[in-house]
């Protein structure tokens, strides 16, 4: 491993060694063994590799690993506190938005990034965010339902 960097992953500072051609997803999955972030395509189309970097949802399959140096990255493994799920996870798991679940980590992180930063996100903002994710199972309606429930839950906790 030729390169070395320090960044925060799910609240914990990590020092990792990585190959220069690696993308952030490779560091997460193959170096840190955080396999919750998925590989669905090779050109940032499907969205299942989405993680949150410094508060913003990004696609980890086209983010060079080096770009993560010094940042704070949250992956799908970083949301639940023990058995207590994050509102986005709870809503998505109960709205029928999960079938095969392969797109789910990306959708959870997209909504987490959006709603934590802006709990009052408009319908257009939600739609634009979710349009970056491909789901082959659900026909999207239950994902929209889950997103709206999540937004409501997050708003209530902020009151």
């Amino acid at each position, binding site marked *: 491993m030729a390169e070395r960097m320090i960044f925060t992953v799910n609240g914990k500072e990590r020092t990792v060694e990585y*190959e220069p*051609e690696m993308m952030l997803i490779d560091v997460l*999955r193959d170096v840190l*063994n*955080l*396999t*919750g*972030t*998925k*590989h*669905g*395509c*090779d*050109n940032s*189309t*499907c969205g*299942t590799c989405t993680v949150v970097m410094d508060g913003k949802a990004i696609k980890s399959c086209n983010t060079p690993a080096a770009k993560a140096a010094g940042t704070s990255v949250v*992956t*799908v*493994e970083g*949301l*639940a506190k023990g058995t207590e*799920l994050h509102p986005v*996870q*709870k809503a*998505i*798991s*109960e709205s*029928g938005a*999960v*079938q*095969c*679940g*392969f*797109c*789910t*980590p990306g959708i*959870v992180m997209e909504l987490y990034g959006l709603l934590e930063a802006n709990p009052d996100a408009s319908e257009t903002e939600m*739609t634009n965010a*979710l*349009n970056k*994710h*491909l*789901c*082959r*199972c*659900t*026909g*999207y*309606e*239950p*994902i*929209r339902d889950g997103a709206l429930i999540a937004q409501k839950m997050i708003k209530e906790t902020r009151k």
Partner: protein
Amino acid sequence: MKYKYVGHPYNRPDAISKVTGKAVYLDDVRLPDMLHAAVLRPQYAHALILKVDTSEAEKCPGVVKVVTGKDCKFRYGDNIKDLQPMAVTKVRYIGDPVAAVIADTAAHARAAMEKIKVDYKPLPVYTDARDAMAKDAALIHEDMDNYWRLPTLKQTSGTNIANTYHLKKGRGEEGFDEADVIIEHEFNYPLGSCSAIEPHGTIVWFKEDRTIEVWSTTICPFIIREDLAHSYEVPVSDVRVHTPDLGGCFGYKSDVTTEQTIAWIASFVPGRPVKWVGTREEDYTSTLLAHGMRTRMKMGAKKDGTLVAIKTTLYHTGGAYADTAVNVTIASTHNSTGPYEFKHCDLTGYTVYTNTPAVGAYRGYGHQESQIATERMMDLMARKLGMNPLDLRKKNFLSEGKVNAVGETMWKHNGNLLECATRVEKMIFGKPKPAEDDQYVYGRAMVTVMKSPKGAPFSTKGCYMKMNVDGSVNINMGGAEVGQGLRTVIKQVAAEALKIPPEQIRIYTEIDTQYSPYEWQTIGSMFTTQGGRAIIRAAEKLIAQLKNTAAQVLKTDVDYLEYGGDFVYLRNDPTIRVAVPDLARGYITNDGITIGELAQAVSDARLPRYSNPDQNGQGPIGVTYTMGSQGVDLKIEKKTGKVIVDHFYSVFDVGQVINPLQIRGSVLGGVMMSIGAALTEEIVFDKEGRITNPHLFKYHIPTYKEAPEQTIEFVETPDPIGPFGARGIGEHSVIGAAPSILNAIYDAIGVDLFEIPVTPEKVKAALEARKESK
């Protein structure tokens, strides 16, 4: 009928592991000392391999072994043994495995793979069945006559026709002499892809003790086990296949796909597991494609609208290997009548070798490919007869007493199609149609559809049930969870059958052929029906066992005992009873002596009287059908020709809804997929047989913004086979979208289209044609 647990919404047990990122999919499996493989694909879709030079690749960093197909002596396949794990003398399609590199990391394997040099002699390329059937076409499988095949299959020697299936009912084509009106058209349902978000992947480990262990993205682990055992000459019991969590299947993970190739590669490094995960590009070029069907259909009717004869000829672009395509052709052929009775049928399906990836299963296969024709033909015939298209359909429904193409008599319990159609009619035509405006022109249409089961003589599903000391129950089955939500179904059916709350039932979470009860394949929308039947049979055995033990405890005959979920009790005096948990390990008396058996049961269920087709191509295929009706409100953007689906409607007679939350999700998703097929999805080849769009940004599957509103309802006419009256519904929702959309386009602009996808360019051209004819 009202049930306590069946018919109520339950949350799926795997949702939590999936939202927390803890579900373990194939690519998440890591094994000790694991190696990685990369597979070289050819530059030509049809070529002789002259020379493979691996010397440069062998010198690359991290490389353990470079593998070719040289010396591979066996072929495999369940229907036709026409497959080889790696190309030996020639390549037949652009994704054929030519060679592979095994290395310490996937990146090293890929880098070394680029260094393999192959010399080819190109051969003529055919990407369409019609061209491959031409008289002077070069042979794709010169040795076809020597392949093993099922006794029901028949190749045409000296051609590229791998199989011809023919069905004759009544007087066949002669029956057209009874018709007053005859129409004939040709339709095309092109090659597509299941495009699950999780690509295919496989890990194979040839162990030092000569056993083989496999992990794969598959819903047929038992077939893989038998196949590998046969190829490598070990007992079936020495092959262990795991199915981890699956990121979608939709059909193309339901047959042996990449497993034999990865096994061949791994066999060169015994002792070490070898992992391969396909790129998205390989998922398109080197696994299974779907559809690829041209349907020529001739239909004859009496003046009053009674359908009398149908002739269908299917030209199936089956791909370079026909092992999996033959089933798609056969099902499309005998299902091409749709949900209508024809006195005379002459149905022919040609499975043709082409230089394209092999066609395999796709959600609903054997139905949408030819029923696009049937349902368009019904509208065209109605127009010719001057009838309302729905009235024509209603007049000919496969209702009670009618006989379908394969010769099965239909009963009331096969479902109330009339009710489904009537509801959809009201939803669509019960409101005024928007008038054409500056921007859009509007159209609407409806269709009725039928899906048959897909069986095989050994299509059994097993169930193992054990009761624990606290009365809770574990259930183990071999059904693969691909996202459809079968664990909830199992839980609810078992709860109903055992009369205990679903919270006390835990369903298996993975499939491992070492522990899992036998299951053929989790396909054909059959798990609820057949798996449910197996659960009920196991529950009945378990209850009988509990009663047997209780009879000894209560000193009475079994005949006088009732089972109530919490107690087994005397029918005439319920106060004389024993608690069910006390019977779970046998009953332990006060003096420590145990009587009775451990409370566990094994059972299975298959399709009733499934048989091979007879000399007329007929024969029972399993009795249980699901019928329904679908329709669409759409608009066409005049400037661009873009078709926008505003609202899609589906009503199916499913016998009994088991989980209302999940069944809606299943139909929502199926409709979305099929709208994709109708509007945007097509695998495109250039003249050399290369796929020009093997990426998700080029092969456009529907996105969030493209999802229409959907109205979904269910009719419940109980089925006598399925658990508590339930029928299959997993695939049915994909059948009606394409013909509905094409019929609605006619409604909008008066132009008949005969193929999908209806891209904006094609619709724009149709709009221009409309202007000219005006």
